[in-house]
């Protein structure tokens, strides 16, 4: 089994806010991330797929194809967007790094799994070079 990873970057803004809480509680839990004017990051998305190399091409998956899938399914929705205001999955869910990793998985998994013998193995999202979250498809 080979694990293959493709990296992509996108820039987006967000804020953290739980509508069920008071402003004070939001500020206490989320700190500066609760500023309703939002702030932004240069995110790095790492998409890891797993499979066996094709006997003819030697590829687990065509990287150009994977690049196009990531651009179509994730970057088109997230790049240069305000995640809270412009993406349906974050109309209610808070766009934390954890939730972005899960949402990117949900966007990519149908397209990746539909391709012969390959499965999506891991999504890692870097919010900054020092902060990241991962989702591996676990319940």
């Amino acid at each position, binding site marked *: 089994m080979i694990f293959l990873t493709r990296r992509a970057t996108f820039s987006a803004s967000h804020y*953290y806010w*739980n509508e*069920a*809480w008071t402003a004070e509680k939001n500020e206490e*839990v*989320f*700190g500066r991330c609760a500023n309703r004017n939002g702030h932004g990051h240069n995110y790095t998305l790492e998409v890891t797929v797993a499979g066996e190399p094709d006997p003819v091409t030697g590829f687990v998956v065509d990287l150009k194809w994977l690049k196009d899938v990531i651009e179509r399914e994730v970057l088109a929705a997230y790049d240069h967007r305000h995640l809270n205001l412009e993406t349906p999955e974050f109309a209610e*869910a*808070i*766009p*934390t*790094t*954890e*939730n972005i*990793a*899960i949402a990117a998985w949900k966007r990519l998994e149908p397209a990746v799994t539909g391709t012969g013998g390959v499965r999506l193995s891991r999504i890692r999202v870097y919010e900054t*070079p*020092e*902060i*990241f*979250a*991962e*989702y*591996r498809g*676990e*319940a």
Partner: protein
Amino acid sequence: MKAYFGRRYMLSASHRLHAEALSAEENRAAYGKCNNPHGHGHNYVVEVLVAGPVDAATGMVMNLATLDETARRRVLDRFDHANLNLDPLFADRVATTENFCKSVFELLDEAVRPAELVQVRVEETENNYFEYCGK
């Protein structure tokens, strides 16, 4: 849903690789310039990976501020700008990055709960790093 949250910290520390059980020649052979008598230092990167269910109210596995405070209190305050060999943890263990990595895991393991500490990675330089998963 179970997700993972990772955070990278930097600390600068000195160490010297020297095993008391070995002779001077054997230490020199085993550790080379890392055995130089007055020690040397690194900018270590400590990467902490925790896991757990994503809290429905916060969208988080663990609050970043809590993890930062835990890492500062348990690891960074203790080792940043310190000589690892003088820490009681290395009184009878060589301050290799393997041993340092295990120590960092053990210092954080219970402290990050209820999140699960999955892995600690310590990067000694840009070209070598060590990982410990608690087993």
